[in-house]
């Protein structure tokens, strides 16, 4: 395809072009904008939940110093959060509630991980004292989870300008 640069220049130099572009951008918020977050939360939580099943939940319980019941609860909670955040994106009855529930699970499990493993280091790169790194990844996941909890994963407009 041949780009007609004179036309591009003419369009861009018309009066009000920048304003109209800004206005166009401001009015275009696609309803699917939440899907990147849903896909990544699902990938992370399904991966870690299913890895715990693979490697043995008892080993995870030993390593973290948790009771076996709590370790199972965390594992199943991670898998449920990953599944529900995907199903909650569909246009079906109760989708918002599923997203909220998944977000709450994500936030609770991440607070547990931070308290148990990562606090008080921030940076994700590991040190001798923090072999699993700091808490920034878990803080980001918890923030996304709380966003899902508060909004149900729907795009809520911000305060009026």
């Amino acid at each position: 395809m041949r780009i007609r640069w004179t036309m591009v220049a003419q369009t861009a130099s018309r009066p009000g072009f920048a304003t109209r572009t800004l206005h166009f951008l401001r009015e275009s918020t696609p309803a699917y904008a939440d899907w990147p977050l849903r896909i990544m939360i699902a990938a992370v939580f399904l991966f870690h939940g299913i890895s715990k099943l693979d490697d043995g939940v008892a080993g995870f319980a030993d390593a973290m110093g948790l009771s076996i019941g709590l370790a199972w609860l965390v594992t199943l909670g991670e898998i449920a959060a990953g599944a529900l955040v995907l199903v909650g994106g569909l246009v079906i009855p109760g989708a918002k509630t599923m997203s909220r529930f998944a977000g709450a699970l994500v936030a609770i499990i991440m607070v547990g991980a931070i308290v148990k493993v990562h606090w008080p280091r921030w940076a994700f790169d590991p040190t001798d004292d923090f072999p699993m790194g700091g808490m920034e990844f878990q803080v980001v996941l918890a923030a996304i989870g709380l966003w899902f909890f508060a909004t149900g994963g729907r795009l809520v407009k911000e305060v009026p300008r």
Partner: protein
Amino acid sequence: MSPETRSVMHSEREEAVMQTVQGLPVHAHWLPRVAVAAVFIFHGFQKFPYIDAYAAATWDIVPLAYLVAYMEVAAGLLLLLGGMRGQYADIATRLGGLLIIPVMIGAIAKAHWPRFSFVPTEAFPIGGMEFQLTLIAVGLFFFLRGSPRP
């Protein structure tokens, strides 16, 4: 005070609390904004004192190292500014989200590929790519979403 008055006052207070709770989703965009801005402002500023060591550890191009550091700080600040009021809030949010993506693709290509889990190993001393992919997802989210205002 009659019981009726007290019950009316109580319900009014309850109503105010309910209105606040129902209004909370309006402010929920600050959660991912602040978390991701904290990550990028932290890592951006952290690079400046050790910029030569950082350049040597990555592509050995000092201007590129400076560009990455400035892009990280700018992405964080733009995401914070994008949550505020004003004509340019929307474009700030979108630009902040967009800046995250190339920086994180570079980080994955240099240090994290092909491991997924963030847990570090001998071969992957700073872990796999899931954190960086999550940051790309948040960047894409803010790039697509902007700052929608009624």
